[in-house]
């Protein structure tokens, strides 16, 4: 317990000091994808549902926030709120349509719906097609915090990340989380105990989509850009990779995965197409050799050495 508290303090201290050591925009990008992966993990790791369409929530929320702030002059908090609300509504629609399907069919329905969102974004005028929404003004959060200041922006992003991760952690360790665990472990048994499991899965799906939207909205603020990349299926695949690489079903795994993948993309960007190949190789290695992911394997190692 004490050890855990020490580790927690070290992590928070590192997060607070980080922008003075590392390029803040890189950190913020990693935090946004970290939150995205944590939201995704609520479904994959804790509910047992593989969604292959999460880019739709992430990317479309980014568009909504960008449009609201640039065209309507919305303040950052309202822009984020709009993005999150739209993502939640989309999550409800996707969820209602997909949740009755199981396994691969569930993944396929979410993918199909996300592709529809993608093609809508390609065609709709407000997204500006290939150009995306550019030069989105950041404004002042609550009329006070100037987000154009890199350090202010970093701490705001860090705070949003913290809140998002806390919400997921709370949900997992709640009465609701207990039922989700039961559903993941043995769904027919959960039904036979009188739980309408589809409603619980739907609630988890909406919660996950909402937080994915939050991650997308905040990312718009960081890059001042909302583009087709964010709604593309490739982004849906990337969040799966991050979660598996870090360790699904572990609290911190997706964050670690997001940092590793973002690092690879940022620092190896010069080698172009090779990044995708390296990602592919990593993915194969993880699913064949390190099933539990980085954090999962580390926890298992600690557990083993403790038992000895």
């Amino acid at each position: 317990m004490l050890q855990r508290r020490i580790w927690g303090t070290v992590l928070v201290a590192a997060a607070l000091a980080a922008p003075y050591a590392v390029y803040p925009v890189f950190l913020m990008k990693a935090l946004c994808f970290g939150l995205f992966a944590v939201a995704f993990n609520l479904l994959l790791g804790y509910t047992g549902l593989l969604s292959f369409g999460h880019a739709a929530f992430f990317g479309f929320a980014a568009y909504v926030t960008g449009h609201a702030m640039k065209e309507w002059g919305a303040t950052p908090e309202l822009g984020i709120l709009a993005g999150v609300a739209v993502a939640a509504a989309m999550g409800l629609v996707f969820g209602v349509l997909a949740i009755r399907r199981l396994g691969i069919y569930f993944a396929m329905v979410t993918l199909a719906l996300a592709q529809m969102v993608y093609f809508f974004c390609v065609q709709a005028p407000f997204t500006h097609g290939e150009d995306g929404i550019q030069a989105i003004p950041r404004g002042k959060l609550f009329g006070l915090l100037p987000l154009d200041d890199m350090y202010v922006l970093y701490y705001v992003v860090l705070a949003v990340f913290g809140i998002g991760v806390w919400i997921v952690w709370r949900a997992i360790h709640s009465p609701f989380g207990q039922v989700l665990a039961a559903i993941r472990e043995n769904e027919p048994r959960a039904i036979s105990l009188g739980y309408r499991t589809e409603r619980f899965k739907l609630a988890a799906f909406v919660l996950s989509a909402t937080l994915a939207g939050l991650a997308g909205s905040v990312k718009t603020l960081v890059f001042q850009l909302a583009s087709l990349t964010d709604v593309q299926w490739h982004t849906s695949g990337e969040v799966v990779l991050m979660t598996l690489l870090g360790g699904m079903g572990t609290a911190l795994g997706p964050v670690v995965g997001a940092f590793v993948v973002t690092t690879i993309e940022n620092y190896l960007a010069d080698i172009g197409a090779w990044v995708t190949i390296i990602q592919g190789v990593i993915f194969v290695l993880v699913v064949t050799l390190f099933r539990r992911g980085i954090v999962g394997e580390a926890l298992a190692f600690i557990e083993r050495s403790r038992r000895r």
Partner: protein
Amino acid sequence: MTDDWIIQTQDLTKEFKGFFAVREVGLKVRRGTIHALIGPNGAGKTTCFNLITKFLQPSKGRILYNGRDITRADPASVARAGMVRSFQISAVFPHMTVLENIRVALQRGLGTSFHFWRSDQSLDVLNGRARELAAAVGIADFVETPAVELSYGRKRALEIATTLALEPEMLLLDEPMAGMGREDIDRIARLIREVAKGRTVLMVEHNLAVVADLSDTITVLARGQILAEGDYHSVSRDPQVIEAYMGTAHG
């Protein structure tokens, strides 16, 4: 009087692409009894069971529970109405502890199961009742053990404790003794007799001998239809039953 029968099926039929797994079964289960549904492999016992608990939709026929038509109800509502089933493969939540397993069943009563903003410590008020239930089935010493590490017989006991947590009016047990040694069979048989007090039990079994002194009524199914019904004495002497059983590899 309909009240005497807790379960009634009329004309119950399940067809899988031309194959009748269950055909026109009219089963009646009397309140407060232990009723066994037996038959050789492939007789349609489990299908019949899944139909009654609504895990399968019948092709034809009606199911009445306490005189109420539940033919189109969903399985969760049937469970909420007090009819709780077990499964052939012992159905526990493997990576949750014994205490957590039982608590998941109890927590529905709190009405906070959708509260994702509340700490799971709010469930600790149920721990006392969960421990009582664990003690009632003889697994009090294992409350902190993950269910996956329990022996087969204890998993079954845990399953029964979890089922009892719902205080069901009626228990449906799907082959509760399947794959068990003699010792475990006796223990579970004692447990079933214990929990049947004040309840109705419908159990599916493969083995006639196992249910001999446990059940009040035995219904024998063969090829999806009712072959015979009565107490062990009359059923075990029925020439049709003997033939059905001799016809299989079963000894």
